């Protein structure tokens, strides 16, 4: 991916409602894409990754993401938010042969979950 755009800097949902975190990418080829989660004062942890196998990717903690080439999107979803999902989420693209160690990070989306 040559660029990765997370469309929302902050998303707020109520506990038990669906979560949608949006990510768009630009690439001249089919990229590898990842979602990472960062809980407060922690490092980043891989949620899931897409590497040109199945377009619907299931990750940890009930999250999943669908690669849609026609829309150049890789949105992260979860059917029912839990309080423990409150964290920052980063969409990351593989930039084969590019700089920055071949990885392009989105700017992050902070997810708040209200009781």
């Amino acid at each position, binding site marked *: 991916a040559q660029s990765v755009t997370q469309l929302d800097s902050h998303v707020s949902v109520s506990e038990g409602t669906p979560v949608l975190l949006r990510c768009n990418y630009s690439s001249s080829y089919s990229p590898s894409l990842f979602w990472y989660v960062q809980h407060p004062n922690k490092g980043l942890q*891989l949620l899931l990754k897409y590497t040109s196998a199945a377009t619907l990717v299931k990750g940890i903690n009930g999250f999943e993401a669908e690669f849609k080439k026609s829309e150049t999107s890789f949105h992260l979803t979860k059917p029912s938010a839990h309080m423990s999902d409150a964290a920052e989420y980063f969409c*990351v693209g593989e930039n084969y042969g590019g*700089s*920055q160690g071949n990885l392009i990070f989105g*700017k992050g989306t902070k997810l708040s979950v209200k009781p």
Partner: protein
Amino acid sequence: GAGVSQSPSNKVTEKGKDVELRCDPISGHTALYWYRQSLGQGLEFLIYFQGNSAPDKSGLPSDRFSAERTGGSVSTLTIQRTQQEDSAVYLCASRRFWEGNTGELFFGEGSRLTVL
């Protein structure tokens, strides 16, 4: 250890002092990354090491910043003559490459630097 280890976890220093931050990657991971995360901000790429190749230093913000990786393992990020704007969390990550494939990125918990 099983994961990426960073030290110190917290560092408070006075403006103008030099600091060293250490990263011990997962054994066998040839790729090592340093990122900076300022309060409420995303990740800012600093430097990337891959095997014996020359490091990609394109993200280092000034010549006060330098990094080395000894023996393809442990890396040290050095900030000379620290400034208050250097205050941030410095994250290290590593991953492995094999036969043209890349593995997931594993992150340490970061070193929080505060410059007074």
